[in-house]
């Protein structure tokens, strides 16, 4: 496809116009010329690594009264930059997590508590980062139909899409890991069964049988306890995933629909982002305090019932 660059012609014209104007205006144009040229060359020489290159941090010489310089961005940009930085950290940690998972799944004869703790720590770190990012993302939400709010909403959307895909990736990794862990445990269980059957079938002396059965019982208890814990974890992660999916899907654009059309967005400012974040807030809260709140309310209700019964007993007697 053909293109044509008219920048040189344009610059020539511009310089000609400037020199034509120069005798009229005095030193003003000179002071403008300097820092602008620096910035121009600066922005061209900077290469673009990640898609989230930080803004031009070259401090413009003159003060912020020069409206044409790339001035200090508004405060909310700090939040969005923090979120992008977190997203990058999460990506790195996910890589580490995959490695840790594969190490943990390797069959070992010793107990792998060490590697399991590492896995749990990584998962904990990642979820913390994600939660932090979601909280910061909330700060970007704003009301009103101004250009600025439109801009913030779009930044929000883009970051929300990334966060959603990262959380989904995390949960998927977790569930596959747990599934394979379960399979491994079942495999060990199968070995137990065989061992048991062999024990019964063979005509060993009773001591051996006794010894064998106690070992089997201990192993069985150990396995069922672990299985219990893992199932709880799976339930927990599925719950989390459901919540996050529901909330973030309000923010994320469905590709191929009318909401993904530029002309539609130019004409309408969608308000669903607001709703999405309200729900995200709610979900955050309930997710963190859910089980505890439930416990507390149950206990309170029980207390009330007891008090009522006590009072009734006293009244009746």
């Amino acid at each position, binding site marked *: *496809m*053909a*293109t*044509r*660059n*008219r*920048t040189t*012609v*344009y*610059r020539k*014209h*511009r310089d*000609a*116009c400037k020199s034509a*104007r120069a005798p009229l205006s005095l030193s003003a144009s000179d002071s*403008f010329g300097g820092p*602008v040229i620096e910035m*121009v060359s600066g*922005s061209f020489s900077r290469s*673009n690594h990640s898609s989230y290159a930080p*803004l*031009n941090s070259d401090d413009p010489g003159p003060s912020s009264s020069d*409206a*044409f*310089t*790339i*001035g*200090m*961005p*508004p405060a909310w940009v700090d939040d969005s930059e923090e979120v992008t930085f977190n997203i990058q950290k999460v990506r790195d940690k996910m890589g580490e997590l995959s490695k840790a998972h594969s190490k943990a799944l390797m069959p070992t004869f010793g107990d792998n508590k060490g590697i399991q703790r590492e896995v749990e720590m990584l998962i904990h770190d990642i979820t913390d980062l994600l939660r932090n990012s979601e909280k910061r993302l909330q700060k970007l939400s704003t009301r009103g139909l101004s*250009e*600025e709010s*439109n*801009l913030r909403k779009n*930044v929000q*959307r*883009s970051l929300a*899409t990334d966060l959603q895909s990262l959380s989904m990736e995390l949960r*998927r990794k977790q*569930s596959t890991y747990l599934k394979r862990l379960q399979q491994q445990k079942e495999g060990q269980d199968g070995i137990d069964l065989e061992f048991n059957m062999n024990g019964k079938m063979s005509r060993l002396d009773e001591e051996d049988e006794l010894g064998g059965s106690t070992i089997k019982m201990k192993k069985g208890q150990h396995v069922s306890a672990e299985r219990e814990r893992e*199932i709880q974890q*799976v339930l927990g992660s*599925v719950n989390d*995933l459901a919540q996050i*999916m529901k909330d973030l*899907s309000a923010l994320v*654009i*469905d*590709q*191929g*629909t*009318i*909401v*993904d*059309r*530029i*002309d*539609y*967005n*130019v004409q309408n400012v969608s308000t669903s982002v607001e709703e999405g974040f309200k729900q995200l807030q709610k979900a955050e809260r309930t997710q963190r305090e859910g089980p505890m709140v439930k416990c507390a309310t149950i206990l309170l209700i029980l207390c009330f019932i007891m008090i009522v019964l006590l009072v009734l007993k006293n009244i009746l007697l």
Partner: protein
Amino acid sequence: MVLVTSVRDYINRMLQDISGMKVLILDSETVSNVSIVYSQSELLQKEVFLVEMIDSISVSKESMSHLKAVYFIRPTSENIQKLRYQLAHPRFGEYHLFFSNLLKDTQIHILADSDEQEVVQQVQEYYADFVAGDPYHFTLNMASNHLYMIPAVVDPSGLQRFSDRVVDGIAAVFLALKRRPVIRYQRTSDTAKRIAQETAKLMYQHESALFDFRRTESSPLLLVIDRRDDPVTPLLNQWTYQAMVHELIGLQDNKVDLKAIGSLPKDQQVEVVLSSEQDAFFKSNMYENFGDIGMNIKRMVDDFQQVAKSNQNIQTVEDMARFVDNYPEYKKMQGNVSKHVTLVTEMSKLVEARKLMMVSQTEQDLACNGGQGAAYEAVTNLLNNESVSDIDRLRLVMLYALRYEKENPVQLMQLFNKLASRSPKYKPGLVQFLLKQAGVEKRTGDLFGNRDLLNIARNMARGLKGVENVYTQHQPLLFQTMESITRGRLRDVDYPFVGDHFQQGRPQEVVIFMVGGTTYEESRSVALQNATNSGIRFILGGSAVLNSKRFLKDLEEAQRISRSGSHMV
């Protein structure tokens, strides 16, 4: 594919070298060019966090100097004026200007003069000056499309504007394809001749250096033809999916506006997107006829119901996890199913209400088969039928008039009178105006296949054999034109070359530009022709995409101007 990819490539190049948060500023025409090939989510990935129109940006006063402005606009004088003001009072940190067509030196001078604060970093011409809706079909979405029917003496400046816009659009297409074509035009159309000559002047004289591309062994062909050579196709009712949606509801930039429909199912958006790039079901069904679409949609709904049922049958924890993982695809599928079901339901309702099966059968007979007497009977009956709407009556009489213009003028006059008496909104003389514009003397091609013996014989053979589907038996005239080009038999007498151009052998790429607008039936014909791999790739473009309503509106507008023009003259 090639046009869509060109526009996407242009946009990618615009955005890729500029880092940081950007705002994309478009004008009312480029917003269509961009929206039809690029999605909002893709823009967000490129860090374009705000999209504005050049009109509204002057109004706001907030200074957003942490953003870089990327302008993609047409180089019209209005845009230059607005841009001039915005450069003099810059709101953004950097300004990168991309124009969708050639800039004049004076325009560059004006902009440079206003850029006192030197915020402009680059000025480029990226020739994405057309709306690439489908792989082989583009349009220019021109509002004053009717101007092509008006002789130059009545409104010379209007015709000049029309011609300029068309030439710009065609030039942009060839610059995007990096080709310089050999140009032919339809002899009987003054507008086509004018456009062909001005395009040739631009490509071979004014901007000869810009168009000087690497020559391939056979030059591509640009054929400029006039809508009035085939006035039948836009008047017919359509029965293939994309064409039918445009005819009955209206398709604009691949979007359908469902506001007119009374009751929408809940969760159904008021506007939907029908794009072959993004919707696999639409891609495989856009050229299928109505009956087949119904079956395919039913199959899609059944598949979806199965998925929905299995989703409700969640028993184990793994099922739950799987459901939640697959939720986004499920939602997308649901949206898609709902969209197509709503469209087809609405179209069925309209077909039922307007008795289109009956009307269309007669239309197809008028367009394809002979028999003046029987045709007269059929049209009269339908005119007398109360449930036939005004627009359908008008179309029937027009089709009859186009076909039997010279046979039995008495009966023709009777039909005119009957039409005038039955349709209160009918603008008198419209049919006669159509005949003046596109009557048998004005037409080059053999529209009804009754001009030379070979065609008559072919028609009779087809009539004896019978047709697969009565409702889709019509082939647009474009099909014959494409066949002639494929066989290398496009007559020089009817379609002369511009200047001293000459074509050696058959071209491998052909761009057909229809002045006055194309229809989706014709774009379907082109797509099917390209699928036969005959060695020639056809691309079709027009000044607008017509349906019968639009074509009639253009006719009325042209008639009104001609009348007032003749009063003035």
